């Protein structure tokens, strides 16, 4: 970040001393103490991290995808490391919505952080079923609809790469719940703004982007794919420029608030997404490498605002200067 360049774009009052910068944001009607969240599928249901970091310091937790019934997941190998990233094909393994509500949510509810439940299904009916089951359950701030998992043939991606199917699904879910609805978009499309508009037109309250990029790796000696599922989703710093570009495009196309994600590891990465137009950000693969990444990013954002004399993180949303 070039600070001189940054200062040009911020309000005049920003030059005064800022001792306690305001990190709070409101995404899709969900108030959060800071814009730092955890991306679905990289933080479980918080259980594994509650002994490592103080979950109360997170703006929000987007939990691992939950479906109407338990899902076994894909056979191993499920992951493969790539340059500055990794491929995964977990296959949406999860214990099902009832176990989530009865065993996982009570733990999450005891923390002062926004809990957003990522949901998916293998048909429109299954998406509706899990949405109806979660509607009215206390302790849920909103739903993130996964219409973009690349690893399940009959699953989310069908909705995520077909604008008409996405609209029908999101419209049906809108009728099924009053909870804030956030559509998680796939980057594996020619024009992501079409899907952002479809979500907006279907009554969604916010957008998450991006999900993983569809990828593949091959063992050249045995001539077999590295993943049992053959293809998998690419995540990590390798995809960050693609994600920043898509957040920027979508921010200009729709009014919906955006949760930006894709390779965020550092406060500077988070700032890129915010300047591109994200109201909040989520750390994904970064949690695997540094389990404290979310807290380091929240602290780093506060330091940045102080150093630059910017009163609120909201002053930076979409403030990239494009000549």
């Amino acid at each position, binding site marked *: 970040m070039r600070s001189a360049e940054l200062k040009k774009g911020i309000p005049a009052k920003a030059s005064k001393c800022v001792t306690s910068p305001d990190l709070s944001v409101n995404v899709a009607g969900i108030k959060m103490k800071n814009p730092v969240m955890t991306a679905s*599928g*990289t*933080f*479980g249901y918080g*259980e*594994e*991290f509650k*002994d*490592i970091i*103080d979950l109360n310091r997170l703006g929000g937790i987007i939990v*691992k995808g939950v479906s109407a019934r338990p899902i*076994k*997941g894909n*056979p*191993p*190998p*499920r*992951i*493969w*490391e790539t*340059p*500055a*990233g*990794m491929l*995964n094909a*977990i296959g949406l*393994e999860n214990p099902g919505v009832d176990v989530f509500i009865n065993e996982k949510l009570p733990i999450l509810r005891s923390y002062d952080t926004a809990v957003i439940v990522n949901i998916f299904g293998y048909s429109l009916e299954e998406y509706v079923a899990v949405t109806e089951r979660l509607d009215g359950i206390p302790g849920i701030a909103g739903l993130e609809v996964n219409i973009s998992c690349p690893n399940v043939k009959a699953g989310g991606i069908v909705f995520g790469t077909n604008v008409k199917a996405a609209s029908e699904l999101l419209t049906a879910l809108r009728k099924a719940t009053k909870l804030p609805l956030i559509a998680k978009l796939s980057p594996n499309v020619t024009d992501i703004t079409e899907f952002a508009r479809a979500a907006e037109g279907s009554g969604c309250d916010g957008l998450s982007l991006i999900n993983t990029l569809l990828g593949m790796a091959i*063992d050249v*000696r*045995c001539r*077999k794919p590295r993943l*049992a599922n053959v293809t998998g989703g690419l995540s*990590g*710093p390798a995809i960050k420029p693609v994600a920043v570009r898509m957040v920027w495009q979508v921010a200009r196309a729709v009014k919906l608030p955006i949760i930006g994600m894709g390779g965020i*590891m550092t406060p500077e990465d988070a700032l890129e997404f915010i300047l591109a137009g994200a109201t909040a950000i989520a750390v994904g*693969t970064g*949690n*695997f*490498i*540094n*389990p*404290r990444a979310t807290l380091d990013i929240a602290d780093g954002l506060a330091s940045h605002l102080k150093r630059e004399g910017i009163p609120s993180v909201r002053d930076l949303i979409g403030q990239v200067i494009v000549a």
Partner: protein
Amino acid sequence: MPPTKLHQATVVLHQEAGRGYFRIVLKAPGLAKQARPGQFVMLRVSENQDPILARPFGIAAVKSKQYIELFYRVVGRGTALLATVERDAVLQVQGPLGNGFPAPEKGTTPLLVAGGSGFPPLLYFALSMRHPLYMFLGARDKECLPPLRAIKSCREQAEKVYIATDDGSAGTRGFVTDGLAAFLDSRNDRESFVIYACGPRSMMAAVSKLAAERGISCFVSMEERMACGLGVCMGCSVAVRTGGYKRVCKEGPVFKSSDIDWSEQVVLPALHRK
């Protein structure tokens, strides 16, 4: 909150240990105090983003409640980079992770079976035990056996160390399981035996079968590629006989061998192929 598992560890010793192995000793008191045999650490080999993932290593020893010792061979980019790390460097390490070996019950005789570079957690286990124990070390050839100092430690702890190589270049010619089977069948105190194995999946499957046929309880330390080591990436899952998968990093790495679904074929590249 319980004691932290995230540590900054200082490299106090890093040397070639023979037979292609490196030995690295890390000062990490917080980690060393919590560690139990069979647990592992996730070590970041550099601060750079490529390679990005930490690497899992079974703990080979804990010294003075301050230091942990690891052995590794250079098998890919991560370990190649690790081999260049110098003394006094500070590395991010998480641990101890996983469940570890269940302590042997009184009156039992542990049989420790290590294949290839699977010996480090069993070495730590052997060093921690007062039970009379037997060790079985197997490898493709002499150069793939554990380094001499590790074998020496094994000999000091065990009643006897049996060595087998596929090509006969050291010890008995054949698989480690051949020697294990012969040992089991030559003894009439079989009911006191408990087997603990760590090594290639095919070897552990064979050990598991051998134990099941003779009604001997058997524990295996599973190895899978993993991204987080914390139980959230779900990358290290192994198929279990009750259906579905369990996480090597969280429910494992040590499982009862009878719980594993050995029929599921896992296609992993042969890292040590010449």
